[in-house]
């Protein structure tokens, strides 16, 4: 019977092609526009590391300016980051900062080029589940012994070694040789939760080196640096300053660990207060990935406003569809009457028209996918290629499925009243010629 009704739907479409096409178009535009915004939100507001987002915590120590009332700084000072690393009180932990440097490839083939990298600890890789194409991250001994080792991204490995297994090779970065221990596979969490203050939708850095080398090798810092107090003069002035420039993440395995670690941070802060630091009231914080993304409001206001507007656009399109379905189904009263005379009961008529509405919805959904795809291409063009998310803006299977289901259900929903009206007309009226 389902297929029969589907065939009737197709025939009915052909009977009023203009009215039916208008409906399909209304559904397509409404659903298509909604899905463009939905996809943006889906990509930008997704959980970047669902397996562990409740075990990874962003550390904030309130070393801030006593003359202001704002939140604790989002990054740590050099003093605090090194102290936490030394204390080694979490299951896994890493201090991490963005750096830059000139990379000098061997041979004359490629000219030296400037590159953005990241200093991290050995735990960085297992903590964030980074996938490896070749080799692996470095050992903790490399952190301790200041070994000059590096992990490359897939892209950089392509560029330097044509994609071959480069572990064991060396690269010259910022005037120093680094031995490659691993090459990452594609890895670009969206949002880039581990460093959202330097751009939540930026791409991954291209090379990773032990964080402990940043200072001894005098790497230029590439990320955000905030100082509420000017560093003292002298070579160690900056290191001993209240300037924050280091992100700190810990992996904890249970709720008890979280409370314990926060207590550890508070104890540390209390101890620092005795040295005259941490002039504000105690306000240290641990946020897991989801809480942190929420708190930092990584989703731009624009997408939230657009979500509301897109929902209204969808509503307008559905109101439109209700009106058009009403015209269409009331125009079918004669057929409905004949079918009743031939033995159709109300249930089967209702089903027939629900399927007809669903059929229109499905066509609308398919056309809506095209509109959504075109819309997303348009958004990509508008945003340009400097935002990494453009790589992620496309119709993934989830979005495709949601679009079709939304289109079908919304049209059927819009059809309920028109169908009910059309089916509750006394059939006798329409059987007699006037």
């Amino acid at each position: 019977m389902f297929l029969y009704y589907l065939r009737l739907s197709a025939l009915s479409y052909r009977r009023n092609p203009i009215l039916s096409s208008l409906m399909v178009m209304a559904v397509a535009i409404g659903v298509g526009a909604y899905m463009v915004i939905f996809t943006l939100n889906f990509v930008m507001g997704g959980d970047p590391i669902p397996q562990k987002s409740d075990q990874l915590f962003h550390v904030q120590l309130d070393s801030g300016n006593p003359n202001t009332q704002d939140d604790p700084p989002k990054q740590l000072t050099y003093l605090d980051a090194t102290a936490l690393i030394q204390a080694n009180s979490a299951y896994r932990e890493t201090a991490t900062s963005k750096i830059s440097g000139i990379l000098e490839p061997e041979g004359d083939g490629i000219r030296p080029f400037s590159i953005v990298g990241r200093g991290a600890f050995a735990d960085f890789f297992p903590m964030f589940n980074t996938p490896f194409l070749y080799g692996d991250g470095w050992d903790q001994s490399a952190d301790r012994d200041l070994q000059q080792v590096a992990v490359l991204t897939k892209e950089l490995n392509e560029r330097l070694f044509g994609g071959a297994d480069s572990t064991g090779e060396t690269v010259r970065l910022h005037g120093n040789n680094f031995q490659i221990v691993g090459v990452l596979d594609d890895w670009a969490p969206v949002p880039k939760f581990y460093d959202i203050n330097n751009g939540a939708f930026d791409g991954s850095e291209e090379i990773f080196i032990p964080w402990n080398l940043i200072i001894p090798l005098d790497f230029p810092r590439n990320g955000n640096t905030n100082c509420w107090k000017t560093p003292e003069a002298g070579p160690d002035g900056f290191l001993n300053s209240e300037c924050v420039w280091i992100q700190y993440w810990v992996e904890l395995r249970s709720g008890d660990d979280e409370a314990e670690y926060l207590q550890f941070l508070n104890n540390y802060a209390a101890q620092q207060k005795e040295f005259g630091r941490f002039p504000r009231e105690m306000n240290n914080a641990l946020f897991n990935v989801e809480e942190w993304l929420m708190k930092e409001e990584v989703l731009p206001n624009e997408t939230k406003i657009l979500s509301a507007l897109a929902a209204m656009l969808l509503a307008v399109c559905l109101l439109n569809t209700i009106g058009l379905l009403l015209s269409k189904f009331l125009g079918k009263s004669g057929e409905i009457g004949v079918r009743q005379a031939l033995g159709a009961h109300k249930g089967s008529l209702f089903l027939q028209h629900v399927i007809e509405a669903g059929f229109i919805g499905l066509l609308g959904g398919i056309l809506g996918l095209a509109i959504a795809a075109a819309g997303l291409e348009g958004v990509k063009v508008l945003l340009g290629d400097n935002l990494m998310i453009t790589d992620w803006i496309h119709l993934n299977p989830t979005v495709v499925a949601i679009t079709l289901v939304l289109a079908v259900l919304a049209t059927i929903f819009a059809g309920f009243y028109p169908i009910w009206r059309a089916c509750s007309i006394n059939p006798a009226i329409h059987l007699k010629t006037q």
Partner: protein
Amino acid sequence: MLEMKNVRKVFRTDMVETCALDEFSLTVDQGEFVTITGPSGCGKTTFLNIAGLLETHTSGQYLLDGVDVSQLRDYARAKLRNQKIGFIFQSFNLMPDLNLFDNIDVPLRYRGMKSAERKERVDKALDSVGLFARKKHVPAQLSGGQQQRVAIARALVGEPLFLLADEPTGNLDSNTAKGVMALLEEINDSGTTIIMVTHDQSLAEQSKRNIHILDGRISNNTEQTQQKAAAAA
């Protein structure tokens, strides 16, 4: 087979109750060919709608094949329409976008019949009205008489207890009308009961029995057994 006792139909939507059925009683037996006549719009159509289970009556009793249909709900009424009644309308009421085969197929679909059996029955029905060769055509490609033949085939395909015909020749020229009437008589001869509403007095006179309705009541109920009975004998 069809038995109405004191059936009343009151229309509440309009202030006036001019053309409803009033204390209407009628029995139709298996194999009869009954014509219903009466002045324009005076209970004929209401009778047809009630007899065909398209409308409910206000009071009284209506037994169809021994079953009291007064209290039945839509689902059961639809089932009865599908299995026991065949409709023929003045304006044919074929589905414009279904071909002949699919048009005749409709009642069998609602009966939930298997595809092979449906095909066999529809082909047979088409053949019986002489339109088998045109089964892929749509109604608009046929003449009025041909369309009415299709409608008759559709009414017959489910092998109903009786046919309800509402001015079946009203939209046809007289020659074609004769052909359609001949077909209906043939059907009646093979045992199917026919109840036909008409305002054509000559058609009424041809039938075995004529019921005349006036203001919702039967004013005249004549048996015209002569020619047909003779023919049967």
